[in-house]
């Protein structure tokens, strides 16, 4: 050491601004975006539990009412009823209702009647029509 100061100079390597090239990143992200937009389904699925009548043997459960769904209306125990009459008769009753759709009735109308029964608090179960 001869009294002179030693100066060390540290040269930092110049940092690159972006390690990933942003243009190609955008390309990939766009492709992912289109994939998820096209491959996903945005339907709001709901579940409606279906119960068939006669779960514990056919004769054991007492049947309260039978609601037959026809293509142009409904019959409660063989008598033509509309939605209001059905509501008056069944609302709050404990008696179970067996819903039987006739052949050729679309599923949508069965679901609509089941919706009404559920709204009225009716204990509904399903049965298929006798083979014609």
């Amino acid at each position, binding site marked *: 050491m001869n009294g002179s100061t030693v100066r060390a100079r540290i040269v930092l390597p110049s940092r690159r*601004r*972006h390690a990933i*090239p*942003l*243009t190609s*990143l*955008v390309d990939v*992200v*766009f492709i*992912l*975006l289109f994939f*998820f*937009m096209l*491959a*996903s*389904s*945005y*339907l*709001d*699925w*709901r*579940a*409606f*539990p*279906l119960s*068939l009548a006669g*779960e514990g043997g056919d004769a054991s459960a007492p049947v309260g009412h039978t609601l037959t*769904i026809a293509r142009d209306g409904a019959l409660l125990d063989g008598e033509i009823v509309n939605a209001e009459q059905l509501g008056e008769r069944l609302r709050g009753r404990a008696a179970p209702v067996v819903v039987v*759709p*006739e*052949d*050729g*009735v*679309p*599923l*949508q*109308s*069965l*679901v*609509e009647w*089941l*919706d009404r029964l*559920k*709204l009225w608090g009716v204990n509904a179960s*399903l*049965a*298929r*029509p006798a083979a014609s």
Partner: protein
Amino acid sequence: MKIVLPSTRRAGSGLDDERLLPLINVVFLLLVFFMLAGALSSPAAFRVDPPKSSEAGSADAGASALLFGRDGKLAFGAEVVEVEQLQDFSRRWRAVHPGAALAIKADAEADAAQVLRLLDALRATGIDRVVLMTTRAPSK
């Protein structure tokens, strides 16, 4: 005569990358939104228009379901199931999902009596808990 062309900006220069940042932010936000909002589903054998219901409860949209087409065709995911194969299908399904309810995606225009016959046949093979998948209808 001297024609001065506008200097083309070099792609990938630092200035260009800076200008891409807001775009990337927005695209990333959209990507995250679509990933979270949509449900990825496996391809189905045929198209099913579900019935609308106002009273049905919430359901897991990603779960695979037994499809019931407008003309009475059956499929599980992309695989078509014949009525004769129902016993075999039921045994395999119950082995994978013991005690679970089988989801049925049936077409709104399908014959309701045929759907109930299917339920009857499923019960005969040992599947007695079935839920019908619907979409939400505007409640009255």
